[in-house]
């Protein structure tokens, strides 16, 4: 009965999204609200992300024209990098995307000073690799990576450093004992935040789980990331309580098992709805 209900809900959601997608111009705000509330049906996900990230404009009758511009822009940048020998046949695809992104941002190193990607590029590369698994078409993929990264940094760049504090806050409400344990073995400040927040869990989760988190990020929430982290800690509570060395905790969390990531994401979204999207005072 539960699955029937869920299935029924899924059909209703899909129908209401289809109605929204027939609007011309598209109501971006409503699409955001939908994406905050429900998981996007996979057949519409890429399209909705493109609209929410501004890759496609609200007016549907401009989509063909704009998509043509996007494709040309992609080709122009790619060709130039090939002519300048920044790229060669064996360059990994994510590195191609990185160089294109750098060229457009006027951050391309000189060719004579070109080295393998730097540590500061790791977030981009992680997000790029995950997006590559999600999106087949390279033009779409490049644009989605570029706009995802740009929107994330512009909107949430200033909030990222505060997310660990927020994690502490919600963990104190959810499981004060676990928090006390992490604090007492001084692991709390050493948790792998850098693998979690700036790259939105790319590389930590299989893409199938990641998608539902990124639905929320693309539609305007970075707080969801905090709740995913809370649920990671909660679901490995028993193991974490048994570890007293911070290095062991960090080591474990940096190489998390991949089995129940779907359940973690589902619980994280529920928890996030409880605290944030449903008015309950806390924000």
């Amino acid at each position: 009965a539960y699955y029937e209900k869920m299935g029924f809900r899924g059909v209703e959601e899909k129908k209401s999204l289809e109605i929204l997608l027939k609007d011309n111009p598209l109501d971006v705000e409503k699409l955001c609200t939908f994406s905050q509330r429900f998981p996007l049906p996979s057949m519409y996900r890429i399209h909705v992300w493109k609209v929410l990230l501004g890759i496609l404009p609200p007016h549907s009758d401009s989509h063909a024209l704009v998509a043509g511009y996007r494709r040309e822009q992609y080709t122009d940048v790619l060709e130039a990098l090939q002519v300048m020998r920044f790229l060669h046949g064996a360059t990994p695809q994510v590195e191609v995307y990185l160089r294109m992104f750098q060229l457009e941002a006027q951050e391309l190193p000189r060719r004579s000073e070109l080295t393998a990607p730097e540590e500061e590029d790791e977030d981009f590369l992680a997000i790029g690799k995950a997006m590559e698994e999600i999106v087949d078409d390279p033009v779409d993929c490049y644009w989605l990576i570029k706009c995802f990264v740009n929107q994330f940094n512009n909107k949430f760049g200033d909030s990222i450093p505060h997310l660990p504090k927020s994690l502490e806050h919600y963990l104190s409400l959810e499981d004060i004992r676990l928090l006390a344990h992490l604090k007492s073995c001084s692991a709390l400040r050493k948790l792998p935040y850098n693998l979690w927040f700036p790259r939105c869990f790319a590389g930590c989760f299989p893409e199938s789980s990641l998608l539902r988190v990124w639905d929320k990020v693309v539609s305007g929430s970075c707080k969801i990331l905090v709740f995913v982290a809370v649920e990671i800690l909660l679901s490995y509570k028993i193991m974490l309580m048994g570890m007293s060395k911070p290095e062991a905790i960090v080591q474990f969390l940096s190489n998390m098992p991949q089995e129940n990531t779907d359940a973690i994401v589902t619980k994280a979204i529920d928890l996030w709805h409880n605290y944030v999207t449903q008015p309950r005072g806390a924000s």
Partner: protein
Amino acid sequence: FLEDVKSQAREQLQASESRYQAQRRVTQVLQTELLQLYSRLEMENPAASSSPAGGAESLT
């Protein structure tokens, strides 16, 4: 009046388009120039050609 707005928009888009095309022609000239230079460098300095190629190789 609506037609007026529409035609103004069309003109703006065309202007943007022609700016783009002009810039593309510049790019093409520069790219041709660059390709010629690369091949000249490699012809003139077959010994040193390891260094331009080296730039590319260091990428691998």
